[in-house]
Structure formats: C-alpha cells, structure tokens
C-alpha cells in the first residue's frame, strides 16, 4: 500500500494544486474583502465596514437593485422549475424508455444548449423573438432561460435515475399500482435527490446568466448580472463589490446544497 502511494505521487503536483486553488479563489476572496472596505475609493483600505452592504439594501440605488434581484430570482425559480419538470420527464423517457430509434437524436437535442456557444444562442434567440414578434421583456428572458436550463437539470437527474433499479416501479405495477402511482409514489421519491440537485443547478445557471439575458431583455427589465455589468462598465465601485459578494455567497450556498443533495442520494443507493 505504501508503495502504491509512492508510485502515484509526482513531484510538484501538490504545489500546482495549491496554485490552482489560489488562482480560483484569490480574486473572489479579494473582492469579498474589499467589499467591506470603508472607503468610497476602491483603491485604499480604510478599515472594516458594512456601509456598502447598507448602501445596497437601503441606498439611493437600492430600489433598482431590489427590482433586478426580484427579476433574477423570480425568473430563476420559474425557469428552473419548468426545466426540471421537462428534464424529469425526459430522463424517465430516455433511461426507462428502452432502446428506440430517436434515442441518440434525443440525447443530442437535450445536450444541444450545452454545445452551442452562448453568444450564438443569444443571437439566434434574439432574432427568433424579433421575427415572430415576441416583444422583448420579462417573458423573453424567462423563455430563453428555460431552454438552457434543461440540460443542467437533466444531467444530475439522469445520473441518479441510472443508479435506480427498475425493480421498484415493476414491483409497484405488480401490486396493481397505476403508471402514475408507480411514478409519483415510488420512482419520484427515489429520484428526489437528483431532482433537487438538478433544480438547484438550473437555478444557479439561470441566476448567473448574463450573455443571453443581455440580448433578450426588454425595456426597463434588468436582472442582477445585467445590472452589475452596466454598473461595472462605468467603473468598479464598492457597492458593486458588495452586491457581487452577495451573489457569490448565494451561488456558493446553492451549489453546496446541490452537492449534498446529490451525495446523500448516492449513499442511499
């Protein structure tokens, strides 16, 4: 055992790992630290303060940020919910559907939003909405988000379902359950960790999206990322760092939940 350890070890890989972590976390941590800086200029450190967080919630621009936050969260909840429902159905169809002709094509279709570069999706969606006369606004953002959330919801759900044996639903059917009962009473509870994980990932993806939202948003509708982008273009200000830190914190919370949801599920099976 000792020998295996030695063979697997490579000089310098640990320092590279530390460097990688430093690269990934360094900028985020520094922004978080500076969001507590008690100075209107972001350059000098003038002591710890929560004033920029106060500014975000109660300052002059607070209504704008609150509205953007409301848009972001309501869109994320609706888009993630819809995408999750579609993804659950698709996962059952794909993984419990046996072999069928359209399977490869269906999989390609489901992963299409992951493969097309975001900017291309954004352009195509904008042109599409404009051609069919769908006026840009809140609804256009929601519809666009549902589409790209589907694969992110699908992947953890499908992964979970693959690990659940089909004997459960078959046993339910043998006991004269209807197909709907077999799904809602038996299979879905087993899939739940995967569903939660998929929902949370779709939620985070929707919450974070900038490029597509920026293209399809309508007059006067901002989400947090587009509001942050607009503000950052005029210079990085401390309140933007505070709001970024908040969003960062939220993403971390959701990803952590998603992570544990999927892992608790794994232990069960």
């Amino acid at each position, binding site marked *: 055992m000792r020998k295996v350890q030695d063979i697997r070890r490579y000089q310098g890989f640990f320092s590279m790992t530390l460097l990688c972590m430093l690269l990934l976390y360094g900028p985020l941590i520094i922004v978080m630290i500076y969001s507590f800086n008690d100075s209107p200029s972001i350059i000098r450190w003038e002591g710890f303060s929560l004033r920029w967080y106060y500014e975000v919630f109660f300052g002059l621009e607070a209504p704008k940020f609150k509205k953007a936050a409301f848009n972001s969260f*309501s869109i994320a909840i609706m888009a993630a919910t819809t995408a999750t429902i579609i993804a659950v159905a698709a996962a059952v169809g794909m993984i419990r559907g046996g072999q069928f002709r359209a399977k490869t094509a269906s999989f390609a279709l489901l992963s299409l939003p992951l493969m097309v570069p975001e900017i291309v999706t954004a352009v195509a969606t904008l042109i599409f909405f404009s051609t069919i006369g769908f006026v840009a606004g809140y609804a256009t953002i929601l519809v666009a988000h549902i589409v790209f959330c589907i694969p992110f919801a699908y992947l953890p759900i499908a992964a979970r379902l693959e690990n659940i044996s089909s004997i459960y639903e078959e046993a339910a059917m043998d006991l004269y359950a209807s197909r709907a009962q077999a799904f809602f009473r038996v299979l879905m509870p087993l899939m739940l960790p995967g569903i939660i994980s998929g929902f949370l990932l779709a939620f985070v993806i929707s919450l974070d999206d900038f490029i597509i939202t920026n293209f399809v948003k309508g007059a*006067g509708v901002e989400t947090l990322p587009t509001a942050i982008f607009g503000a950052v273009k*005029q210079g990085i200000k401390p309140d933007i760092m505070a709001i970024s830190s908040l969003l960062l914190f939220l993403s971390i919370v959701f990803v952590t939940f998603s992570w544990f949801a999927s892992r608790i599920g794994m232990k069960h099976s």
Partner: protein
Amino acid sequence: MKKTLTFLSTICLLLGAGTALSAGKLSIYHWFEYIPQELLDKFASQHDVEVTMDTFDSNEALLAALKGGKLGSYDVAVPGDYMVEILHNEGMLDTIADGELKNKGNILPQWVDVSFDPGRIHSIPYQWGSTSFTVNRDDYQGDIRTTDLIFNPPAELSGKINVLDSQGEVLALASIHLGIEQCTNDREKLKQLNELVQGAKPHWASFISDGAKDVLVSGEAAVGMIWNGFSAKARAENPSLEYSYPKEGYVVWMDNVVLLKDAPNRENALKFMDFLLEPENAAAVTNFAQYTAGVANVGDLLDPEIVASPELNPPSDAPAGQFVQVCKEETQVLYDAIWTNLKK
C-alpha cells in the same frame, strides 16, 4: 407537496411581476450617469408613476437599439442634436401638438428654432456641452490645447489614449483636426480622414464611452476623449485631470428629450417633459451632470462652482465648437465604412 409549494410560489411571483403598484408607467431611454436618481424618484412620487430607465452610451447605440425592435417600448429618449434629426428622418418621433407642453415657454430662446427640430415639435432641450478630451497632467506636461494629442500623439502618450466609442463625435473631431468639412463626398478628403484614424489607432488603448471617466480617474488612460461635464466629475475624483479646448476646434452638442413614436405611455411622457422644463428640475440635472441646461431661469439654482468650472468656460481664444452634421445617405455610407473599418 414540495412541488405544489414551488408551483404555488411560482404563480404568486408571476402575478406579482405582472401587477404594478403605481397608477402609470414611464419608460425612459437615457444616456448613462446623466440624471440623478432623486429626480426620477421625485417625478415618480409627484405623478404616481413607476419610472424605469435603460441607458445607452452613444447616439449610434440608441439608434441601433430602436431600429432593432425597441421602438414602442420606450416613451422618451435623450438623443443628441444630429440624432434627433436622424430619428425624425427615420420616422421614429411623435409630434407634440401645440399646447401639449405647458412649460414650453421655459425653453431658452436660442434653443427653440434649432436646425435639427425647428420649432421644437418633437423634442425639448435638455443639456448642452462639448466633446473634446482630458489629459492627466501628471503624465503629460506639454501643451494640451491641440487635437494632436488624440490623432498624432507624442511618443510618451502612445498606448495611453482612450477614444469614445461614438462614430459621430470621433469622426467629427477627426474632421476638425484635418480642417475638412464633415459631410464631404470628396474621395481624397475621405481617404485622408481614413488614413488619419487608421494611423492613430495603434496609439489608442481603448474605445470606451461608459468608462470614459473611470479610465482617466484610475490612471489607465493619460488622455481620454470625454464630454466636458463628465470630465468635471472626473476632476473631482482626480485633481490632476485637465479638460482641453483645442485650438483646432471641438465638438459641441445639445441633448434633447424626444417623444418617441408608439410610446406606450404618451401622457406620462409629456408630463415628464414638462417636469424637465421646470427650472428647478433642469438645474438638478445640471448640478448632477455638470453640463449646461437649455431652460431659462436656472441661474440661481445652480451650484456656483459648476457654473464657474473650467470645463464649462472655454478660454477666450478658443474657437467655436462644431455640431455633428447629418449627411445624406450616399455620403453617410462612406463615413459608416470608415468607422467600421476603424473598429474592426
């Protein structure tokens, strides 16, 4: 159960998003960092209107957005002089009938019969100012009153210049630098103009409008094209910045509030225009953006420091500024080509 809850909350949110709390709405398309939030809040509470504002950073971006399907979703926009004329030619402006604006009389006489909107039937004056450039005096101590600093910069400034991402103003300033007219069909002159900007481009670090102040304040740019009031705001954050009124000339402009065609809230748009014509409110914009209002009787309401600022008071030997001109289609396509060629 969980799903039912999610579903219910979704419905609630959907309903919540659909119903506005205020009686009416007003949708504004405005330049960035130009109007104080307090003033919008004041209008909102005075008229019980929900105000939303999107921002743009160049006249051309405004035009592109309206052409790209945003017409019909905004009530008012704030284009510069030449863009008012273009928007009018494109049929994108609504007409304000006689008597619809009760404060129309507050417009300063010299801004009533303007060439881009004679008699002010589509627009009201907002603020006016100039476009030139600002220099960080820590980086450059020489003579700054020449457009050479942008188009033919000394070696020490090369790579430290920011230019506005604004076709009209950049090409107008370049024409002023060359001493040629703005809408020329003369091939040789156009080639000269093209060569000038192409030759200057390697010296330019960036094309930034919305961050024009930030790049100067932070020291990323030593020279930056900028509007005079925005430069005054930059100077407040970094005292070594100095706005230049070049001897060759500079661009002047007047921004205007226009009533857009197919405005969803035409009534509120007119109320807003009336609101902005009140001296008190026009002065509030000036005190914020530090340009000059086009409304009478604002004098006593202005911050004296702004009125006396070097950005708003050209030196006595400075030439008069030039407005950006609207060219005919066959000429404009050539200027468009020069700009596309420059930006690519």
